[in-house]
């Protein structure tokens, strides 16, 4: 492995300052939570930090707290704790399910929520060291290459799909992202946190090099809120989603008061489909209606040469998940 020094900050702000300081000294810094993604990137020399700022040891950064109706989740919570947390299981099942669907028990024990959300793309080219947009280069290899696992929405100039399972759930729960920088903090909505390649081709989110994702806040769950995450894998465990969907419905009997539907594995960000949500709003959720919502969700998809199969596949799981959540 390339050499670097490890830093153990006291708190998030100090972590951010360490990154800032490194930059001023002409050195690269990177953050690590559980490291399950970061160490792979370093070993492949895709990430080349001189300073690795380790966040998981920060005291109190992994708590789940309820404030008023809202729930604040420390970014350093492990994915296994998150998937077993009683509050989350009860009110925000979609997030527990998404966290529980990540990789393997070992990765969920090590991996953090923040690290899961901020993990780099798993596009074959990027992971094999091709100098593409995501590596700071100026072309995309998948566009004319092997794109069976790539975006059908929002692509260009990079066509990655956002790899995180929990991100899809967080977007569906309308989470807010609390960001800490060297001189303060800011909060972004999910819609502003995740960014398309059009905005910045080398990145997946709005974090500056010296900002960390400290926690996420979930708004109070409506009384009739039910939710679920459905993930489609290429073998029965230990792969990223081929496609996925997070469905959050506020139900009154069998009528849907409001809906949030987000697709995973189809776009460079968790892809919310407001038109499909509208199809459900105020309606009795029948199988036919769920099918119509699914149809709407995929309208306008622009597949590349090898990934058109994602359209029928995603439709099917949206329909199934909407029906299942409505029925539950």
């Amino acid at each position, binding site marked *: 492995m390339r050499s670097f020094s490890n830093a153990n900050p006291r708190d998030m702000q100090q972590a951010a300052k360490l990154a800032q300081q490194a930059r001023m000294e002409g050195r690269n810094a990177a953050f690590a939570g559980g490291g399950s993604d970061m160490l792979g990137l370093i070993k492949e020399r895709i990430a080349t930090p001189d300073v690795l700022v380790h966040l998981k040891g920060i005291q109190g950064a992994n708590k789940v707290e309820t404030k008023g109706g809202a729930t604040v989740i420390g970014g350093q919570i492990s994915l296994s704790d998150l998937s077993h947390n009683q509050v989350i299981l009860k009110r925000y099942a979609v997030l527990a399910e998404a966290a529980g669907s990540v990789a393997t028990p070992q990765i969920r024990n090590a991996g953090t929520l923040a690290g899961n959300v901020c993990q780099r793309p798993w596009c074959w080219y990027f992971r094999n060291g091709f100098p593409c947009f995501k590596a700071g280069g100026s072309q995309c290899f998948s566009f004319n290459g092997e794109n069976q696992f790539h975006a059908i929405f929002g692509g260009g100039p990079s066509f990655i799909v956002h790899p995180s399972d929990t991100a899809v759930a967080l977007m569906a729960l309308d989470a807010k992202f609390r960001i800490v920088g060297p001189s303060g903090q800011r909060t972004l909505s999910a819609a502003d946190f995740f960014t398309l390649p059009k905005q910045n081709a080398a990145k997946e989110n709005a974090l500056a090099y010296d900002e960390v994702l400290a926690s996420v806040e979930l708004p109070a769950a409506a009384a009739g809120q039910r939710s679920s995450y459905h993930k489609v894998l290429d073998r029965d465990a*230990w792969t990223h989603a081929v496609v996925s969907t997070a469905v959050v419905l506020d139900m009154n009997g069998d009528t849907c008061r409001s809906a949030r539907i987000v697709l995973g594995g189809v776009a460079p960000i968790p892809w919310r489909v407001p038109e499909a949500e509208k199809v459900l709003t105020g309606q009795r959720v029948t199988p036919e209606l769920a099918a119509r919502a699914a149809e709407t969700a995929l309208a306008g998809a622009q597949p590349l040469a090898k990934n058109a199969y994602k359209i029928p*596949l995603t439709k099917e799981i949206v329909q199934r998940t909407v029906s299942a959540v409505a029925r539950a």
Partner: protein
Amino acid sequence: MSKPRNKKSISRRKFIEGTGAALVAAAAVPTLDAQTPAAAKASGGGTSAVPRSTIRLKVNGAMHNIEVEDRWTLVEVLRDHLKLTGTKIGCDRGECGACTVHVDGNAVYSCSQLAVWMDGKSIQTVEGLEKNGKLDPLQQAFIDFDAPQCGFCTSGQLMAAKAVLNKNPRPTREEVRAGMAGNICRCSNYNLYVDATLAAAGVSAGMGSKTIIVDDAGATRVAPLKTLGRATPRIDTRLRVSGKASYTGDVSLPGMLYARVLRSPHPHAKIRKIDTSRAADLPGVKAIVTHENCNYVWGAGSIAGGRQYVEEMKKITKQRRYAFNNPVRYAGEPVAAVAAVDRHTAEEALQLISVDYEVLPFVLDQEEALKPGAPQIWPEGNISLDIRNEAKPMREARGNVEQGLRESDRVFESRYSTTFVHNAQMEPRGAVAQWEGDKLTIYTPTGGIANCRTDMARDLGIPEENVRVICQYMGGNFGNKNQNQDSDLITATLAKLAGAPVKLEYTRKEDFIGMHGRWPTTQYYKVGVKKDGTLHALEMRGFSGMGPYRKNSGSIGGIQLYKVPHVQYVVTPVYTNKTTGANFRGPEFPQGFFGAQSMMDEVAYQMGMDPVEFLVKNMTRKAEDEHEYTNYTLEECFRRGAEAFDWKKRWKAKPGSDTGSVKRGSGVAFLAFRAGLGRSAAWMDVDSQGRYKVHVGVTDVGGGAKTTMGLIAAEALGVPLSQVEVIWGDTSRCPYSVGESGSRTTIMTGYAVIQAARDLQKMIAEKGLPKGNDLLTAKADTNPSVPGGKVRNSFAAHFVEVEVDTAVGHVKVLKYVAVHDSGRIMNPLSATGQIKGAVIMGIGMALHEELHYDPRSGQALTAGYYGQRVATHMDAPDVEVIFIESDDGYGPFGAKSIGEAGKLPAVAAIGNAIFNATGKRMRDLPIRRQRLVEVRA
């Protein structure tokens, strides 16, 4: 295909492990370099410039204060520095599970944690499971169920299972599976790992699926024996479950250096110049080799026609493969190697080597490679030379196929294709080499120590007596760890140059791109049938993509399974710029059986016949329709299997007839597979106390060979197993053995063991037991053959039911029954694991696995367990095994081949079941989700 490119100098970064992007390096690399201002400093290479920290670590209860480099991973500290080598590295990337340990009670991958992060934490490793010399009940259960095959994944499986039981003392089968989902077992002994875990929890006492042994009730029925035939735990499993078994990577010698290999990012390029001067200047670097100073021919790497065991052949081979080749012919081909004081310094040094390539055009697909104008990989063209150095396809014919097709009432045609899949054995290849004067000792994971030694001596040009090969334990083989490997030559040369022992460990990715896998094929069938469903003519044209070197025959097995008067087989082995295709569990069969048996399944449906009925009518009764078998139980395999499986009920007369999107269906496939006799040797000695030692050149790649040899010796001598010690895995102590490949160790080496026992008994009868410290020794070198031109085969029929969720393209295996005649079952415990594991491996090949190449850069994109989608616990159904025992009077007590057999029909059986469920014939492997969704659309 890429255009030839002009000279370009590519950044250091691009050379590592072939990860570079050939096409565009010039354009984008400067940006990358700009991001890494510190890279140039190269971090000092094992010197004080490297940041270090002191940590407190509690490991298995003992406190350690250690100074670590910040970049060291936990597993590195455990293995290299605390010498706790029970924890293994299978991938170093969080994609295999072999490195699983507990940190403060939670299972994590120790390869994916930095040691500095562990400060103040409590670690438990496999070595900590044993308490006061007493095994944990889980370890004992692993022994009792013979859960470890090669054992390389075992410590990881144990730690994962332990974590499950700590949280949930009485889990269900599904909970155990889910809890162990993060632990790959490439031997795929998943069923038995789960069974053992449940047994340890007291939830169940037996196997989750049955194994039944019946005898063939015919003329070749087996007579019961004293020792053989009883479920016997392996003699060395205790070491495998306690982390004490020593694999090549666990060997550590005083003053040992570490080596790393630089690989070409280009699939085809001429090396104009290699500048190693900057690497040589890096403190800590001790030796560097390239094609310029290490130009040994690697004989076993490319032998015309795959005749790697024929010494004469090796001499006449025209197209030579060297330890380092120029031009390089596949992305990932070794270009240089460095030995340095530690692994990180060696890796840093690779960054400092610059290579000037003249990039050449390349071709990946075997049919493309035969088109006019295709890039030429060898001057003689892209058709691989045969044993006479002639560029000709392999041909076999019987009758007159054209006439046969004319005479047929109906003729059917289809094209099938299979992809490159990698062996992916759990333990990556590597070696430790040490010279004492002109004598070389090499520790290397090889299933054939004897052949490896011969090869090393020949390649290095030294006498065979000067080479000692040691392999005490090895983590799986599946065909790519017999003989010697380029890594052995490279390690030996570095050790010689550096004047110190050298250890080389391939990374998982290097293993995928630098070691051979299964050759991809395209297969064209024409089948002529008579009105009554009798096969009349069979034509197969095939193309095999061998990579740039011919390491195996490249044939495509399958059509010899049928009784048919007119046959023609033409297969062209073709050079391509992918990595080499060669031995992998039944080298030419899983892909050939998939094509041939899917094709026959098509024909059966077209003829309106039940596939079982069609096969029983048309399957082989004599080898090549000509030679008698020594025994024949194929019909019995079908009959028993159909009954146990309930074929009549599960099979759908109308394929795809289930309503709704979730559809069930069943498929069948079968096997006749070589179980020939052949040359091997064994020594046996006895001391004054009547204690026996049997010396055999086996290493036990996972099939249990050491134990089987002990059992055979005990049986032949008429003594209990405890009175026999087995000596293995060291050419200085063991005679010739063919090596654990081709499913022939039990038959061939076992035969020699019996002969040695008989000779020794005769000597004892004549002279009595030796006195004092003397030994009586018998040396047997046997080369039996089956008289009268008869052919020995193993037989099997597989039945599988799947449920396909067609709307989402998901396949679930509901029931799997595998009926095998492998002759006498020497040890039902390990025999069961061989079949179950092979079936699950076959299911993985059918549904998921592929080393996928980027057509534009020629690089492999899916190297690794994650990329190739190797089956996990969650993908492994319970497999039911039925053995029909027979004793044909040949081989040791009637044993026949077993190791490869289970995989061969599995791929076709799955494809046929998917057809029965969905009505869609899937003709290209793997039958992944995407394809199933696409055919429905």
